[in-house]
């Protein structure tokens, strides 16, 4: 393998990576709210995002917590902008600490510089060493004193006020949002929240603003998480049954569907484990009802045998894996793209199936909807690989389109017997009899079988069924949606999933510097189409493959199927922290220098 890891080259390049671009600070601002778990930083971040969204901005909030249920460290990272915001910035403009409890754990995650502003309560003591070493401008605001002065105000709403004041958010719009959020909790809480907001905004007036947002020009937007978007995509695609077992960070998909499926005539069953949940879905789908489950790595591992069963019995099935740090329990609350291997290659036997990945929060909806359509059309399992970064991020985005993809399974009509469930057809897809259909009775089996479904151990039957199942996927026209191909240039960036978010911003940054880069983000990870990939890479003479996996799983997957340019380099970093755009931009610059040698 010719690829090398950019991280081995040292940090010299990175130190000068982020030009201080004053213009950009009107375009978007980055904020971190930190504190002990339970201090209310997540609520504060959400209020700020909601209020900014109400005021017409786009925004993104990602959550960083330890695995504790209560306590531990918590950070809400909020980036707001006048245009869509896809990922977090490399650095933070404004950090507000409600307290310093376990704040040392954010040293690698929250990057401050001399232009950053840090606000903390002096009564909370000295900030951790990494804050002092950052050269950020530090200001003391006695949050607890302000809370005492304004009875019923909470420290976290004062922090919201501080942030709103410093970023230049409209006070009227802030008050309206706070009223809306707290009105169900009674007038005392509304008054307290408003008092906190006003106290914070008043305190902000005395401080220098690190970053001020230009006025927003409101456009239609949706506010949602990636996990909610997956749920919506599943409903649009036609999923009407879900069985699931709780697992971080996928549980919100299950919870969202539990409330919505009954509204559209479907249902959700909480299963006893993941072995049960995936098999329940297979049972429902055998009965003709489009079905899905949502899980994360450890649960996905338990489902792999049943995914092979769905391949052999040609049962449509959607499995969403919201990836987290692994293996084993790993880092359940943080992100990684390291389940690609098991999703593509995990099943025993030769078991062709679909693996897809959304590459933005909005695309979580679109790709899930596409996956339902494909699984139903091709009568096979589809795995959708989302991750904690997209799944639990909450964002104001341009509303995703409603595509035409609806579950349309080829079904067998009633007949007079002699039904051939697995009849060989040119496209490999055979009409499926649904229980209740007279004359279509058959026994689906994981045993190798004949076209009639009768079990067989004959060589010819085995080969025919293997060929048929492969043909379904390899003869299908997946159209243009298999990848996003953006921009022109002799330098290429090939990536997938949530890494695309930072990659897009990196490409934009280096383009402004005059380095033209074509970005290719694969949505269809299996089956790979080597012809389409080589067409997408035509004219590219140096390529950066970007992924969040220690073992470069994506690069290995590509190498197994495709010809990549001779000058292909790998930026493969493990989680749990999201790859930042500056990191990718640096790698692109290094790659372009390499070419010039």
């Amino acid at each position: 393998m010719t690829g090398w890891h950019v991280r081995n080259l040292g940090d010299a390049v990175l130190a000068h990576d982020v030009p201080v671009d004053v213009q950009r600070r009107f375009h978007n601002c980055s904020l971190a709210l930190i504190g002990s778990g339970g201090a209310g930083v997540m609520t504060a971040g959400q209020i700020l995002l909601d209020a900014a969204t109400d005021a017409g901005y786009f925004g993104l909030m990602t959550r960083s917590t330890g695995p504790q249920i209560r306590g531990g460290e918590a950070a809400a990272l909020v980036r707001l902008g006048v245009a869509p915001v896809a990922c977090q910035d490399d650095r933070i403009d404004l950090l507000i600490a409600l307290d310093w409890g376990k704040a040392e754990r954010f040293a690698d995650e929250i990057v401050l510089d001399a232009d950053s502003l840090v606000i903390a309560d002096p009564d909370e003591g000295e900030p951790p060493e990494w804050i002092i070493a950052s050269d950020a401008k530090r200001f003391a605001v006695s949050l607890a004193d302000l809370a005492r002065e304004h009875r019923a105000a909470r420290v976290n709403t004062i922090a919201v006020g501080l942030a709103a004041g410093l970023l230049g958010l409209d006070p009227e719009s802030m008050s309206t949002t706070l009223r809306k959020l707290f009105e169900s909790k009674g007038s005392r809480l509304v008054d307290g929240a408003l008092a906190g907001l006003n106290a914070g905004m008043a305190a902000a007036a005395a401080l220098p603003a690190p970053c001020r947002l230009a006025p927003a020009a409101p456009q239609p937007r949706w506010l949602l998480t990636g996990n909610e978007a997956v749920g919506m995509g599943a409903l649009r695609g036609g999923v009407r049954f879900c069985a699931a077992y709780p697992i971080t960070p996928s549980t919100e998909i299950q919870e969202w569907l539990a409330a919505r499926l009954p509204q559209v005539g479907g249902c959700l069953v909480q299963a006893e484990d993941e072995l049960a949940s995936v098999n329940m879905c297979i049972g429902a789908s055998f009965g003709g009802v489009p079905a899905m489950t949502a899980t994360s790595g450890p649960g996905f591992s338990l489902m792999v045998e049943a995914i092979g069963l769905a391949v052999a019995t040609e049962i449509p099935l959607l499995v969403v894996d919201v990836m987290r740090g692994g293996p084993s329990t790993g880092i359940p609350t943080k992100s990684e793209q390291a389940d690609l291997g098991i999703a593509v290659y995990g099943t025993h036997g030769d078991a062709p199936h679909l693996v897809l990945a959304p590459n933005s929060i909005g695309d979580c909806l679109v790709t899930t909807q596409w996956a339902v359509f494909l699984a139903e059309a091709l009568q096979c399992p589809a795995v959708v690989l989302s991750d904690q970064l997209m799944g639990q991020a909450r964002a104001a985005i341009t509303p995703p389109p409603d595509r035409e993809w609806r579950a349309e399974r080829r079904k067998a009509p009633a007949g007079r017997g002699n039904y051939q469930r697995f009849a060989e057809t040119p496209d490999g897809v055979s009409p499926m009899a649904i229980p209740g259909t007279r004359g279509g009775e058959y026994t689906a089996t994981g045993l190798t079988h004949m076209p009639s479904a009768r079990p067989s151990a004959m060589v010819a039957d085995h080969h025919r069924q293997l060929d048929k199942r492969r043909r379904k996927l390899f003869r299908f026209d997946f159209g243009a949606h298999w990848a996003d191909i953006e921009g022109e240039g002799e330098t290429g960036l090939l990536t997938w999933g949530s890494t695309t978010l930072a990659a897009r911003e990196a490409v934009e940054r280096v383009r402004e510097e005059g380095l033209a880069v074509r970005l290719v983000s694969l949505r269809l990870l299996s089956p790979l189409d080597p012809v389409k990939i080589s067409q997408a890479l035509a004219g590219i003479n140096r390529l950066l493959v970007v992924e969040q996996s220690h073992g470069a799983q994506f690069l290995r997957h590509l190498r197994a199927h495709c010809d990549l340019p001779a000058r292909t380099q790998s930026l493969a970093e493990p989680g749990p922290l999201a790859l930042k755009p500056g990191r990718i931009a640096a790698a692109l610059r290094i790659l372009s220098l390499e070419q010039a040698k």
Partner: protein
Amino acid sequence: MNSEPQLQIQALAHKDYKSAYKPVWCAGCGDFGVLNALTKALAAMELPPEQVALIAGIGCSSRLPAYTRAYGFHGVHGRALPVATGLAVSRPELAVIATGGDGDGFSIGGNHFLHACRRNVNLTYLVMDNAVYGMTKGQASPTTEADWTGSKLAPQGTHQQPFQPLEMALAAGAPFIARAFSNAPNELAHIITEAIQFPGFAFVQVLSPCITFRPEQMHWKKRVHEGFVPTADRREAFMALMDDDGFSTGIVYRAPRECYRPDTAKAVTLAEIAAGFEVVS
């Protein structure tokens, strides 16, 4: 289906519920008796084959669905109950019957058995219990006696107490619990009928000898005896099981309670759900 041909409706005999496939079972296997009794019960109830779904895992007895003319599903080892649950919950109008053996149901699928008992989905579970893994050629199963030394995998016995399926089912909340014997086809067909007609999770342990790996089970026909009197009183059922020698047959517990019912909600359009994401400035 618009193009459904008008078929002549006539009562089906029990042989009409059997497929043309020759079972893989050994001559003399108890499972033949279960297949006969089951098809008899389906015929007696006049259940159209297309309205019946037989769901199985892996093992000798799990091959049963393909030997019928109903819809069938032969899945992976131990997961018959989850597949049956998904089907029964999403298609409640079907008669869903899970079948399998003691290894499939009580060992690898043991967790699903407990939760199926307490979940109480409307389905029937027939376990053909021969206290041995037949398909893998004779290893001890959860219901094997602790001192059985007939297996190469546990040559000195299992060193474990046998699993008590009926007690477990009762403790876990199953509302219908019965035992029958594969060599008593009429009683078995009767109990299967009762189980299918029962509104809820109905569990039937069928003593079904393996004459190949447990030839001593040939003597079961001498040991089996009527004994259980159906009760809806859980305490009485436990008492009956305390007195049980493992060969009493009949329905030991029958206490209908509300079946598992998924959540319901007022109908909402997808556009209305999507509107929940819209930012109203």
